């Protein structure tokens, strides 16, 4: 770097702006794609009136939400009610600071020096992700509580119970990957997969399955959308929210979906790596830039999210708890033991 000012101020700032904008646009358009894909699964066409092919629908929705009345219930806890949506969005966005979108790049020679496209690589990256993304649940609980509405409160409580039940197996499934990669840094995990020559889904299929199920549960998406179960709780924790505050909850939900998809990509699908990174025969796949590989994998996971929503009915609450504690937790613990044994026996290979 030419000067510390550029290295420590300008470059990170540019990255922050780019990442934030990208995440916001993705979250905005996720709502459009969700409606579109759900419609296609129900052999309908979905939104196609606003702009060519309906592509301006997301923007129209954003403007609609901006211009809506911002209602605060008279008996609500005003300050907390105001803070809650922010508490959902901010952790979801903060997590993006450690997600490795690709290896250091010169942007096809545009930059004088290779710059990593991610904001930072901290050596406890995955812990940071798990910790910060769990803070988002406070926003949901506080939003549910401060609304002074029994449905909201029930939604918030369910959300808390769900998070506690599913954070544990998720942590264990991540431990399996950490054992294989021998590092907590997300960049190192991807590089370890490059050295191993195989994505970690292959040895860690069970871990991946558990991770993704828990990820769906933690983002409160179908079939684990009990906190906002429409048929029971009106809209759960965001019953009393309207306008931009409501939009923030949804922004947080979609951003969290992108986070879970990105982490699943990094941990199990080799991040920015092409399939079979060590097979020279497939090196023609390197034509596609690493970032696009990453984006493609994340897009697939986001599609699977919507696919789930279009397919599965909601779990009953006791089924949800039973699945978390009686199935996922023991299986994930056994999986950690197995992977640990494997790493011990195969030693230096992974």
């Amino acid at each position, binding site marked *: 770097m030419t000067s510390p000012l550029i290295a420590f101020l300008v470059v990170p700032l540019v990255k922050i702006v780019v990442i934030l904008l990208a995440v916001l646009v993705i979250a905005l358009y996720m709502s459009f794609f969700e409606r579109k894909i759900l419609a296609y699964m129900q052999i309908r066409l979905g939104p196609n009136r606003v702009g060519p092919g309906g592509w301006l629908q997301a923007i129209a929705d954003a403007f609609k939400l901006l211009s809506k009345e911002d209602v605060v219930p008279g008996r609500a806890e005003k300050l907390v009610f105001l803070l809650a949506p922010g508490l959902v969005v901010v952790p979801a966005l903060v997590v993006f600071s450690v997600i490795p979108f690709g290896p250091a790049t010169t942007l096809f020679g545009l930059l004088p020096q290779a710059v990593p496209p991610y904001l930072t690589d901290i050596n406890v990256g995955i812990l940071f992700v798990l910790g910060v993304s769990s803070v988002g649940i406070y926003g949901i609980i506080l939003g549910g509580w401060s609304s002074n509405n029994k449905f909201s409160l029930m939604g918030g409580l369910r959300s808390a119970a769900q998070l506690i039940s599913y954070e544990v197996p998720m942590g264990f499934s991540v431990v399996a990957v950490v054992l294989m990669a021998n590092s907590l840094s997300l960049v190192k995990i991807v590089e370890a997969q490059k050295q191993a020559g195989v994505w970690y889904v292959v040895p860690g299929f069970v871990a991946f399955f558990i991770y993704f199920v828990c990820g769906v549960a933690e983002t409160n998406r179908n079939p684990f959308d009990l906190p906002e179960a429409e048929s029971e709780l009106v809209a759960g924790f965001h019953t009393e929210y309207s306008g931009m505050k409501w939009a923030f909850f949804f922004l947080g939900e979609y951003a969290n979906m992108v986070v879970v998809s990105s982490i699943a990509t990094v941990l199990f699908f080799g991040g920015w790596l092409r399939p079979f990174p060590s097979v020279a025969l497939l090196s023609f796949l390197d034509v596609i830039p690493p970032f696009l590989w990453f984006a493609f994998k994340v897009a697939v996971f986001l599609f699977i999210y919507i696919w*789930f929503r279009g397919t599965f009915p909601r779990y009953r609450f006791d089924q949800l708890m039973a699945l978390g504690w009686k199935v996922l937790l023991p299986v994930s613990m056994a999986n950690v033991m197995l992977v640990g044994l494997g790493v011990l026996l195969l030693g230096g290979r992974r």
Partner: protein
Amino acid sequence: MSFLDFLPLDLLKGLGVTGRYLLKKKVTIQYPEERREPADRFRGMFGFSEERCIVCHACAKACPIDIIHIQDHFEELEVDGKRKKKKVLDRYDIDVKRCMFCGLCEEACPTEPVAIWLTTKTYETSAYERNEQLYFTKERLQSWEGVMPYPGVKTPRQGQMPGDATGTKKPKTGEQK
């Protein structure tokens, strides 16, 4: 409980169904641009023929919500060299805003073909002011002023026939009375 029960095969089956439907042909009809032709017996806007009406009041009596208002008077007319008293229609009004399209008026009509019918395929009868715009006098029932006929449908005055709104049906032979 076999080992297979632990595998989420049923979930994958469900995903397969939705995945298949994702690629299926969509059934949406983009309404203002394209529209599906209503069936022949679809009951829509009223058609009325003053020529065929014999002022028997059967339709008004059949109407369960009494929205057909008929008034008439007698006139002395010369028919075939004889002086005859004949009923002449003064008023034949239908309050369409309250109509439930049961079609009992059409069933009650004794003329052949019927003088009042609903099989017009015309359903775009929305209005901004229902008391004025959805109250049809006998002139408007025939001229369909302010009504958007289904594409290809003539107004009753232009010769639309009951049960054959688009005029494409071939007359049945051998069944004539």
